[in-house]
């Protein structure tokens, strides 16, 4: 302490000069930063107090001390539980790193220069050696998931990756880990252990866990014949994992009664390593939850992987992403959300690792709506000189590149948590709206300057095919944006009608656009081909085009059929709520009477995301206010619901995707339940969860009509 001067008195006497009750700080320091500080001696903020509460066994714990067979199995069981607890909104220091063996391995690896897998050790005993392999395997898996998290998940929402500056075996190869676990299995087999099978199942399960991320490198033969060998070999890994999990779950009694070395799981790590975070208790979700969730991970991946192998065309891909991923995402484990996102779109922009890339997807999406066989997308039909061709080509390529970016943005939505999905869609609305403006300018310009373009019909104006495709995508985003808000319970009673009323408008615009701009345009193209075919020598090529356009329109019509049924249901909800208001069951205006802001202001705030969008034109509060009909009858509501129900039942007959089928069934049930509710509910207006996340239950008892 020679170089130090005691300034205790100097300092604290200088503090008394502070007047006005204000802090003294450097002008460059923002006090906002200070809100993140930990605090000495505050038991909720100071990890430095932890050593005081630790036992001698925790303080003096030795990782190299020989462990017993029972302790080996007990530790592996505990580590599985801590691993799954980490994924359950906890952090590494409160879960896996609380195990002294994990801390020892990972800390040792972080500090050492020689980083080969053979350098790890947790003591010489045979069970210590097996434990070492397990801990290395577990740490590697954690390391992989940290990377997945940092790449495609949201920190503190889906996963918490803060790692106390530790390196979770970045440079160790997964194959080395798998082999090391294999040697450990051999070691167990040759040992004198009493319960070899129980231990080996745990080791095998960890191998299988480490194999899961392989999925994000597998290459799917998208829209083609599935690679059955690959499908089988990945299914084998998953099935073996599921078998191990079943064995472990069936032997809960055994695993849960094995011993843990005293002091091996502890808050120690929070106080021993660098730590800018607040203290917390070790978190453990328990045996049942752990193995239930882990089984889900394997089962879900099995489903997802099998389904992706059998996606037969672009329509099926769209349905898969929507119904098997986006709508199901709440049920997917975070491990799968992360792995799936990486599986779906790769660094080289290939889709599901196939030869099919983002650029192909973008073109296909357009073609399968209305752009197939258009003048604008087909330079061979342009009839321009070279210089002009190049000019138009450049502009077209730029537009396509920007479109690809938009499609990419949409692809990032599906596997995110529902809250993020809504926020990302909100962002993408801007992207697609400006794409539409850009595309309209482009299509108008090349039509005016070079006469490149397509007519919608013999008498109609420019079809603007690319812009029409973009508009259609944008409308879907707008509708979905409002609908997710219902699921997230963002809307309160007073505004719920306005939301359905707005969705009703958008779905009508969408259906009209699909029928009048897309379907009609394709039909017109078909009629032109038929006319041309009569005179042409190249009948076969034209016939192929005709067939393709016919197929496209069949798929479009199918989609429109869904939207028509859906719109009828939306319209019924509007009628229902309108009717309830007429019956004085609810008075939407009254609910806002005591607000210090107006309903109109809230209406504008609610639809702010659409505020900058030119088409479709934004609905105003005045339109909302005059949207109520004074003469809605109960029969009218019931009829409308019945019609919606029938349309949806009819549509569902031609649905093949299981999850879509279920979705439609839940809409049908919704129609039924609304009808029942109308015939005898409670005497208050209530909104509660219903059969479908987009359609809550509205409870209200209506006066009997004599």
């Amino acid at each position, binding site marked *: 302490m020679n170089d130090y001067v005691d300034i205790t008195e100097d300092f604290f006497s200088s503090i008394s000069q502070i007047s006005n009750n204000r*802090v003294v700080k450097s002008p460059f320091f923002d006090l*906002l930063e200070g*809100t993140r500080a930990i605090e000495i001696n505050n038991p909720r903020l100071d990890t430095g107090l932890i050593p005081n509460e630790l036992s001698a066994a925790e303080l003096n714990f030795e990782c190299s001390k020989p462990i017993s067979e029972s302790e080996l199995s007990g530790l592996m069981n505990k580590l599985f539980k801590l691993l799954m607890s980490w994924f359950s909104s906890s952090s590494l220091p409160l879960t896996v790193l609380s195990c002294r063996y994990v801390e020892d391995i990972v800390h040792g690896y972080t500090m050492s220069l020689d980083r080969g897998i053979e350098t790890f050790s947790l003591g010489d005993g045979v069970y210590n050696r097996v434990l070492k392999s397990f801990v290395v395997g577990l740490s590697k898996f954690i390391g992989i998931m940290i990377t997945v998290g940092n790449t495609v998940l949201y920190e503190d929402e889906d996963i918490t990756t803060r790692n106390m500056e530790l390196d979770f075996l970045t440079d160790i190869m997964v194959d080395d880990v798998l082999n090391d676990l294999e040697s450990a299995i051999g070691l167990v087999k040759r040992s004198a252990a009493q319960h070899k099978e129980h231990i080996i199942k745990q080791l095998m399960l960890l191998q299988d866990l480490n194999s899961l991320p392989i999925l994000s490198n597998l290459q799917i033969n998208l829209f083609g014949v599935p690679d059955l060998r690959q499908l089988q070999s990945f299914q084998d890994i998953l099935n073996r994992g599921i078998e191990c999990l079943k064995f472990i779950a069936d032997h809960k009694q055994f695993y849960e009664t094995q011993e843990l070395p005293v002091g091996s799981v502890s808050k120690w790590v929070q106080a021993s390593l660098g730590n800018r975070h607040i203290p917390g208790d070790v978190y453990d979700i328990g045996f049942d939850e752990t193995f239930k969730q882990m089984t889900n991970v394997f089962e879900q991946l099995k489903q997802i992987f099998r389904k992706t192998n059998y996606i037969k065309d672009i329509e099926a891909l769209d349905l898969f992403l929507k119904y098997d991923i986006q709508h199901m995402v709440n049920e997917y484990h975070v491990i799968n959300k992360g792995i799936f996102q990486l599986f779906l779109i790769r660094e080289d922009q290939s889709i599901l690792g196939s030869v099919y890339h983002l650029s192909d997807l973008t073109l296909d999406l357009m073609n399968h709506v209305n752009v197939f066989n258009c003048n604008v997308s087909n330079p061979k039909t342009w009839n321009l000189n070279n210089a002009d061709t190049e000019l138009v080509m450049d502009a077209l390529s730029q537009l396509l590149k920007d479109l690809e970016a938009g499609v990419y943005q949409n692809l990032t939505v599906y596997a995110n948590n529902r809250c993020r999905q*809504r926020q990302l869609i909100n962002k993408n609305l801007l992207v697609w709206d400006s794409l539409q403006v850009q595309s309209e300018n482009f299509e108008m310009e090349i039509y005016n300057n070079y006469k490149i373009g397509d007519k919608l019909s013999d008498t109609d104006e420019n079809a603007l095919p690319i812009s029409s495709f973009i508009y259609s995508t944008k409308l879907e985003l707008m509708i979905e944006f409002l609908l997710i808000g219902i699921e997230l319970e963002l809307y309160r009673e007073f505004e719920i009608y306005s939301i359905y009323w707005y969705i009703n408008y958008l779905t009508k615009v969408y259906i009209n656009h699909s029928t009048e701009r897309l379907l009609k345009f394709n039909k017109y193209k078909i009629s032109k081909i038929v006319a041309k075919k009569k005179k042409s020598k190249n009948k076969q090529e034209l016939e192929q085009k005709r067939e393709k356009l016919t197929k496209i329109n069949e798929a479009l019509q199918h989609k429109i059929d869904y939207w028509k049924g859906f719109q009828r249901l939306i319209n019924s909800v509007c009628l229902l709520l309108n009717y309830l208001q007429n019956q004085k069951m609810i008075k939407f205006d009254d609910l806002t009477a005591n*607000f210090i*802001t107006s309903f109109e*202001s*809230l209406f504008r705030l609610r639809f702010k995301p659409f505020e900058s969008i030119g088409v479709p034109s934004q609905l105003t509060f005045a339109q909302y206010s005059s949207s109520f009909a004074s003469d809605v009858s109960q029969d009218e509501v019931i009829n409308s619901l019945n019609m919606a129900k029938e349309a949806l039942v009819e549509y569902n007959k031609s649905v093949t995707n299981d999850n879509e089928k279920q979705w439609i069934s839940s809409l049908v049930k919704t129609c039924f339940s609304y009808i029942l509710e109308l015939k005898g509910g409670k005497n208050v207006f209530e909104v509660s969860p219903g059969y479908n996340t987009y359609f809550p239950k509205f409870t209200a008892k209506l006066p009997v009509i004599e």
Partner: protein
Amino acid sequence: MDSSGSFKDTDDYGLVATVGNLRYQRFNPASQNQFRIISNLIADHLSEPYSIYVYWYFLNTWPQYCYITKDSADTVVGVIISKINLHRNVRTRGYIGMLVIDPIYRKKGIAKKLVQLTIDAMIEADHVDEISLETEVINKGALRLYESLGFMRVKRLYKYYLSTHDAFRLILPVSDRAFKRIAFLDQLPEPVST
């Protein structure tokens, strides 16, 4: 900070309202006693752990947006702490940071009164475009309070509180700027720090 100690304060600085035997006062920026009482009251009743520098952040920067409620025995029974910031450089956003009422004084309209005082002051002094706050989706009491004033749920934030519960972001729109998307608003000048 010492969490025991009295909640009594006899300073009559900045009385803004009296309702029954309850007095509503502005926080006195020069009062160490009030600072101590406020931080203790909040630490006793809020679940998120705060260091003393959280209180300094709010009370040194925006002392004008802190109000307290006292009972007839000069005991501080309620407090609200808020701030103002420039949201993405385009909107002046008031933010209600913390609101705590002593449990035995709840359901007496104190919270609502404190929020209203804050909103009025923010509109008057800083011409805020909107006022926001976050609250847990399961905090029915807070939702009822703010929504009865007209705050609207604009966003659901996934696992927001200590990474377990979702939260709602609530917004009360004040000016027309609240209705325009960020990308379409012109930049506002940095506010002069008070």
